[in-house]
């Protein structure tokens, strides 16, 4: 645990006067899969977005792979090492699936088209949609779109993957195929921070669970312990609600 990939230190984020994150500190080791959960508005998305500086935080710092984000002068480079997957996929509708995946490697990293396309096809195969490469995002199902978005993020060979509720916009029958891809990623040693309400996935795949409430981390525990005996009352309440909902 001496060399965490991500080290969040007394992080504070405000929107105007509203405190979205307050004094958040946490280290995440390489090769672990962390699930972040908590009620709506607790700051889960904000936390992820601070880690690739889509959000400019005011207090504290995030150290990624040994380098301070606050001091970072080359954001594009930093961001190309951190893949992000969004709730609403955010595939580029005017580009083919293949071009969605190859765009950043070609433009941001200057890879030759052919090399980028080879990598892209391999990744699309890996997420199970190799046959959809020539289509436009609008012609894919939601589950296929989200898998394409995962391939797009992987194309930069990131050291860290951030998932912000990757399955919340999907119909139930498509959730499984996306979770399967994520599970494979975790098994292959990718460092992952996943905001999700899929507790079955969390229980099976996550190494640790982080529970947030009102802009703070109120509980962090190994997965088994979190589910058997969450200590924070808020976390217990939340778990009760989410596990007995269906």
């Amino acid at each position, binding site marked *: 645990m001496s060399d965490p990939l991500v080290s969040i230190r007394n992080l504070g984020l405000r929107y105007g006067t509203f405190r979205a994150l307050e004094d958040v500190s946490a280290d995440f080791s390489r090769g672990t899969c962390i699930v972040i959960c908590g009620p709506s508005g607790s700051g889960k998305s904000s936390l992820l977005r601070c880690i*690739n500086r*889509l959000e400019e935080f005011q207090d504290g710092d995030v150290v990624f792979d040994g380098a301070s984000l606050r001091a970072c002068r080359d*954001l*594009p*480079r930093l*961001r*190309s*090492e*951190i*893949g*992000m997957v*969004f709730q*609403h996929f*955010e*595939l*580029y*509708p*005017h580009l083919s699936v293949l071009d969605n995946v190859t*765009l*950043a490697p070609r*433009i*941001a*990293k200057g890879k030759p088209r052919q090399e980028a396309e080879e990598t892209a096809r391999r990744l699309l195969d890996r997420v199970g949609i190799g046959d959809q490469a020539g289509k*436009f995002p*609008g*012609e894919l199902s939601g589950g296929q779109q989200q898998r394409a*978005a995962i391939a*797009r*993020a992987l*194309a*930069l060979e990131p050291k860290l993957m951030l998932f912000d509720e990757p399955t919340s916009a999907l119909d139930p029958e498509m959730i499984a195929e996306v979770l399967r891809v994520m599970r494979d990623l975790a098994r292959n040693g990718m460092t992952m921070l996943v905001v999700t309400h899929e507790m079955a996935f969390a229980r099976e795949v996550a190494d640790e669970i982080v529970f947030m409430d009102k802009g703070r981390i109120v509980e962090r525990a190994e997965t088994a312990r979190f589910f058997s005996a969450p200590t924070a009352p808020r976390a217990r309440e939340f778990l009760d609600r989410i596990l007995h909902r269906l």
Partner: protein
Amino acid sequence: MGFDWAVIHDNLPFLMRGLWNSVQLAAITVVLSFPLGCIVALGRISRRRWLRYPATMLVHALRSNPLILIVFWFFFLVPILTGRPVGDFASVLAAFVVFFSAYFAEIVRSGIQSVRRGQLEAALSTGLTYAQAMRFIVLPQALRSMTPSLATECVIVFQGTTIAYVVGMREFLHTTFLVTERTMRPVELYLFAALVYFVVCLAGSIFARRLEGKAGIPR
């Protein structure tokens, strides 16, 4: 009173020269003020105040003035500033480019703002710079949603060329007017003028429709 269409036939070369001037003025105005408008629009939506404030002020200042005033301004000011006469076409063109870039800027701005913010964030998150994200992701999508307003604006530019008349430029309406004075045949000539404006604008909108079809994106 009978119509005498020969008056148009007889003066056609002169009239067509006027029309050519109008078309040139409109076309060059669009070609120059659209990219300028894109730049101003990027300034308008910038987070940096030193870009946003001047861009916003420029747009408001230009849009609150009638085109005719801007044309006068350039006609009298540009020679003073440059110290030499620039010719009526050049000064009118400069006025048009500046004036219409403000309108194009507003069209481009609303086009950009019609693209979901997540698109920009997705592009940034993959390591693209802001400029690259705009160039490859946001602007292509914005362009598609603004094609109809762009076409309308081009028609307005073409109709606006009639204002060049006030500084003596021989645009189409001006030449029509001159012929009318000489021949005393206003009905035929102004009907003809109306027809020409109609045809040019129709051609413009058909062209725009074709472009829109090409930019069409399956969703």
